């Protein structure tokens, strides 16, 4: 009995930390897709670049871990605005095929780019001493780093929920997702709003890519390997819904870990059965507008 309980706690805990990470990386994608209907397959590339920049800042500039993550997130957010203005903005409202191809092209360029600069081998972020080891919660010990991930990710999620539901900007975003023309006609500058959320989403993705290096790794194929996971979170959660992205990430994280733990040889299969079932039941996602 103890064994079963122990296993369940492990699955829930590891699943939760993985889920929080997925949420932090994917939520920006969900909101921007909901706002502009832009299929951005390059979102994972921003997360990947965040990881690489963090490594560079730590090894070459000797910055401490948390400062490096924050600076990398800011840098990637700024970079993403350049891409958004120069490339993406031309294709708003265009057909999805163009958006898919443009952003897949960018993913390939990013994958090649980081290989040229950092080589094909995975990079390792040296976690600071205070985040290694385990924390004893009385009834069980948990790895400190994962606890840290859950706390930080949880705080980010809470801030996003609050911002989305309770602030003026959040209300504007919700209005624009619901009905863009109406939002514009009451004077909301949707274009600027979009650039801002795009930057925020990319910055969060970069932070997620850096913070998650222990779980997801930092390697050139990152942008492709996890692309499908990020898309699942968006599609299953529903476009433009922070709550949906959270629930979907939680679902995906826990099912993925449960599958890995219980049926390691068929875990991948499992996830896609659930994804297909959910999308057939609710084509617009759990919290999406049909």
């Amino acid at each position, binding site marked *: 009995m103890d064994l079963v309980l122990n296993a369940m706690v492990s699955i829930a805990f590891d699943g939760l930390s993985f889920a929080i990470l997925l949420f932090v990386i994917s939520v920006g994608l969900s909101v921007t*897709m909901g706002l502009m*209907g832009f*299929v951005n397959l390059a979102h994972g590339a921003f997360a990947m670049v965040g990881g690489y920049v963090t490594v560079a800042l730590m090894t070459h500039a000797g910055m401490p871990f948390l400062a490096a993550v924050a600076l990398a997130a800011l840098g990637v957010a700024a970079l993403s605005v350049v891409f958004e203005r120069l*490339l993406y903005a*031309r*294709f708003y409202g265009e*057909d*999805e*095929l*163009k958006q*898919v*191809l*443009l952003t*897949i*092209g*960018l*993913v*390939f*360029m*990013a*994958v*090649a*780019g980081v*290989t*040229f600069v950092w080589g094909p081998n995975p990079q390792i972020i040296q976690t600071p001493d205070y985040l290694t080891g385990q924390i004893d919660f009385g009834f069980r010990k948990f790895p400190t780093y994962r606890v840290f991930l859950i706390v930080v990710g949880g705080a980010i999620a809470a801030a996003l929920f609050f911002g989305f539901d309770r602030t003026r900007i959040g209300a504007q975003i919700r209005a624009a997702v619901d009905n863009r023309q109406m939002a514009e006609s009451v004077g909301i500058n949707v274009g600027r709003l979009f650039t801002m959320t795009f930057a925020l989403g990319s910055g969060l993705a970069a932070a997620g890519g850096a913070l998650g290096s222990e779980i997801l790794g930092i390697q*050139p194929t990152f942008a*492709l390997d996890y692309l*499908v996971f990020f*898309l*699942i979170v*968006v*599609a299953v959660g529903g*476009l433009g819904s922070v709550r949906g992205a959270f629930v979907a990430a939680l679902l995906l994280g826990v099912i993925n870990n449960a599958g890995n733990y219980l049926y390691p*040889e*068929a875990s*991948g*299969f499992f996830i*896609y*059965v659930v*994804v*297909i079932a959910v*999308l*057939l039941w609710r*084509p*617009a*996602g759990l919290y999406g507008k049909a």
Partner: protein
Amino acid sequence: MSLGSLAAAPILTDHRVRPLEAAPWLIAIAVYFVLPAQLGLATQILIMILFALSLDLIVGYAGIISLGHAAFFGAGAYTVGLLSKYGWTEPLTGLLAAAAIAGLIGFGSGWVLLRTRGLTLLMLTIAVAIMLHELANDLDTITGGFDGLPIETDPILGLFRFSALSYDNQYFYALAVLFLVFVLVRSTVYSPFGRSLVGIKESTTRMHAIGSPVHLRLVQVYSMSAAIAGVAGGLFAQANAYLTTQVLSFGLSGDVLIMVILGGAGQLYGAFLGATAFLLLERQTELVLGTEFPYWQLAVGTALVLTVLSGQNGLLGLAITLYRRLRGRTS
């Protein structure tokens, strides 16, 4: 890719055979005599043209974006592979079985998936393909998994033997299959059925309004496309006499979509140009620059971004534009 005004693009509406259309086939026959050492690569190109052609049918004509078309290529390949494993090694019936199985999977999944649009549809095509990929990996006692599955094939019609050393027979076999399927696809896209697909792509609402059975049409073309992809996969398995779960991979789904787009979607011959350019450039890049650094990936990524930014409909679209400009100046 927006098709612009249909009247401005005779290749889309005029079904008569133009003399220029003989060119790809003449080139293919010439390759046999001029480049006998390259027939292995040439056979792969023919197979990928067939695969790209199948995808173009749904992307270029019906406007369904799929990032999971390898599901059907792989299904066809494994149909041939498993038939051979359990003793059925006749090639032509093998291809028919590949078409049937892949077509059935296409019909079953299409019936359900094609009720959705946009990102959801894209996600579902990806999910189906990855699910099959995972399944093939999980059932590695049957499929051979990563290690692969060797495939035996009888001589075609009892006459032409496949050889691992020279690709002579494989090449003409693939060319003949490609030609037959191409004739079928060509007559399909110029048929009323094909026109109604373009109608759905241009405006689903209007097609509903004039009473066209939109869902049924989409399922039909999706099944047809899946069956053709299955034939391509079956050919791939037979020609290479070997198969791994790579045939179901997400990477392959992406590659074939890129081929269609680079060549130009919805213009029949885009698949020919796209697949040929893709495979030749890939081979050349790796020969010249090596595989140590991902020059090829950089080139493909850049090419895609430039294609989309240029607003041209792939290489074929570019060629047509240039030709028009040239002619406009001289006359």
